[in-house]
């Protein structure tokens, strides 16, 4: 999921300096799991913003704020409260902020979180990055450990000379060297031959920003549109 943290409250207030009335938007997915944009957090924010002199016109935890359909449903339900607000504070990832903002133009939206990375929730409050969504997955080669993401230098052909005897990366002794993890896993499984050949340079041509992906036409369902369908 998208790992997020809330921006400092004072920064939020500064961004909303000229707004008297705000609507609070959250998201039922990653933002809820990261404890930044669920109902609980929106209620707490409502309290603090009210204390700071703002009027909160309403709150809505959108059913997946990065899904056009989810935004439409939430907006329909809360149209009056949204109309009454000078701006919307969005407690969701950067995609959620924009998917709301693009649909509610010219209503001002304020981002309320820092989007950190696509990550795994090891435990509540402990998140790690394992994939940088690179469009050329090499996990088959490494038996499931991503060198693009988990090696500090994104090396594809084996380690640099920087790992310590306890398998940590020279760049950050807190972090495991991805290539030592890969080496040990492949060796244990008798799969070292999988990384014996040269893996060529990554092809960046197919995924420049902004990326987009559409299902090929014949595969697109006719009646029920897939939820992932881009607008």
């Amino acid at each position, binding site marked *: 999921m998208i790992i997020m943290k809330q921006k400092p409250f004072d920064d939020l207030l500064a961004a909303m300096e000229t707004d008297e009335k705000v609507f609070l938007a959250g998201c039922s997915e990653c933002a809820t799991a990261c404890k930044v944009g669920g109902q609980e957090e929106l209620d707490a924010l409502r309290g603090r913003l009210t204390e700071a002199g703002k009027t909160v016109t309403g709150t809505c935890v959108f059913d997946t704020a990065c899904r056009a359909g989810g935004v439409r449903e939430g907006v329909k339900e809360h149209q009056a409260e949204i109309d009454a607000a000078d701006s919307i504070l969005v407690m969701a990832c950067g995609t959620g902020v924009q998917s709301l903002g693009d649909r509610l133009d010219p209503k001002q939206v304020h981002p309320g979180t820092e989007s950190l990375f696509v990550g795994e929730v090891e435990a509540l409050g402990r998140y790690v990055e394992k994939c940088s969504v690179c469009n050329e997955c090499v996990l088959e080669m490494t038996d499931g450990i991503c060198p693009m993401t988990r090696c500090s230098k*994104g*090396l594809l*052909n084996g380690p640099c*000379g*920087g*790992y310590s005897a306890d398998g940590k990366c020279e760049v950050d002794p807190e972090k495991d060297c991805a290539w030592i993890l890969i080496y040990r896993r492949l060796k244990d499984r008798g799969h070292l031959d999988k990384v014996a050949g*040269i893996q*060529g*340079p990554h092809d960046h041509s197919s995924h420049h920003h902004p990326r987009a992906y559409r299902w090929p036409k014949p595969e697109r369902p006719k009646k029920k549109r897939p939820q992932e369908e881009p607008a």
Partner: protein
Amino acid sequence: MSQLRDALAAGRFAVTGEIGPPKGTHVEPALEEAERHLRGRVLAVNVTELQTAVMRTGSLAMCRLLLERGIEPVYQVVCRDRNRLALQSDLLSAAVLGIENVLLITGDHVLMGDHPQAKPVFDLDSVHLIQAAAALEAGHDLAGNDLDGAPTFFKGCVAAPGSEPMEPQVLKLRKKVEAGAQFVQTQAVYDPERFEAFVEAAAGIDVPILVGIVVLKSAGMARYMNEKVPGVQVPDAITQRMADAPKEDRKKVAAEIAGDLIRAMRPMCQGAHLMTLGWDDVVPDILARAELA
């Protein structure tokens, strides 16, 4: 014309040196040191490129200046700061400036240096960079486009014999040589036994190895490396020799240690790469002690 290539091809024990460009335009001191202490004593001199990710004058310009003073350079090229367009372009630039020896390496992460805010590039890794140099020599670029005039390189790479576990280093070295690497300069080695184990593990890889000798300046430096530099272990006996040396004899003892290490490892490898960290004046003594002068 690479003397380094010729010496290795002829089976002569090859010694290379190393200098680092200054942070700024004041290049004369480093060049003069190289002229005074390295010229005529080593076959070629590496010029480090933004070593430890610290911004400095570039390796390429220094290499050309060395060449103009009759010193054969080894141009270090790192993957950290440039994408594949710039890397290939700089390799071609080196060739037109008369530079043939190149050392193709990944490079330290930007977080290790003085601009931790910089974007690390690593578009290619060291294996890819070697492939790129080999492709240019074959008359085309990495994308397969033809070149109007192809360069000739003597392509080097690095390995860290002291790394634990060692097998991943050997695995990667094999790929580098498969990609076209023609010589290896290793990280600092202070333990001949450990080096011998590495050489044995790499026995099936057909490439000359120049053992890396970093001049030990003090016992404190030895302790620092043991703690902080992965893959470098200074045996206690060597640290003790430095600790016992009176201050005024330190350079002498440092040269003896380096010379003894080279003598011990000479039968196992094809050359030595001397990294003096600014103490270029000890090079003649090292070579004398190693019976190479």
